[in-house]
């Protein structure tokens, strides 16, 4: 797996991971705007709440895919014990994300928790990014 990741990224594993995580974080901020329109907190003339919710779902699926790919790269290539804060934040992020997806797909009765879980996803994503990609970018 390590060789596969190394070949896939042409030896730039950290750089690709940083790009994927940064794209996920940037899209997550956009998600906040979309869901604010979806819930009617923002009311722009050019975007209806229904469309904003659909776009939120599509962008969310993209972010989830990016995060899973990044996590797989991270686990297969880097030592887990290197950065405890990053590992804890990343595990919490993936757990909350999985719970959010489960509520959206199956446990509809728990839908009232979605805003809290969404906020938690953004916060955990920011912590995960800061403890890895942020460190890398500030060093370079």
């Amino acid at each position, binding site marked *: 797996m390590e060789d596969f990741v190394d070949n896939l990224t*042409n*030896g*730039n594993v950290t*750089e690709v991971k*940083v*790009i994927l995580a*940064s*794209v996920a*974080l*940037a*899209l997550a901020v*956009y998600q906040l705007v*979309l869901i604010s329109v979806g819930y009617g907190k923002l009311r722009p003339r*050019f*975007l*209806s709440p*229904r*469309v*904003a919710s*659909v*776009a939120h779902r*599509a*962008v969310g699926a*993209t972010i989830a895919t990016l995060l899973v790919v990044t996590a797989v790269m991270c686990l297969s290539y880097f030592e887990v014990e290197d950065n405890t804060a990053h590992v804890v934040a990343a595990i919490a992020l993936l757990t909350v994300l999985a719970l959010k997806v489960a509520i959206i797909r199956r446990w509809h009765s728990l839908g009232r928790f979605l805003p809290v879980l969404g906020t938690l996803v953004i916060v955990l994503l920011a912590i995960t990014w800061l403890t890895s*990609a942020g460190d890398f*970018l500030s060093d*370079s």
Partner: protein
Amino acid sequence: MSTRAHWLQLAGSLAVAAVIVAVAIAVVTSKFGSTSAAEREVQEERLEQREESQEERLERREERLEELRDRD
């Protein structure tokens, strides 16, 4: 809202997402500097070439010195 307007709004929202992705990639990539593996490989190759040419020069000098010693 008409179906056309619905699809236009959706396309616009996703286009904004695509722009965000492009900008994020551009900003992050610009911060990497000379840390990418491709650039490191080029630097290593240059260093190897320099070392090889230095070794060659040294060998030639030693050969010339030996020739001079032989003549003497």
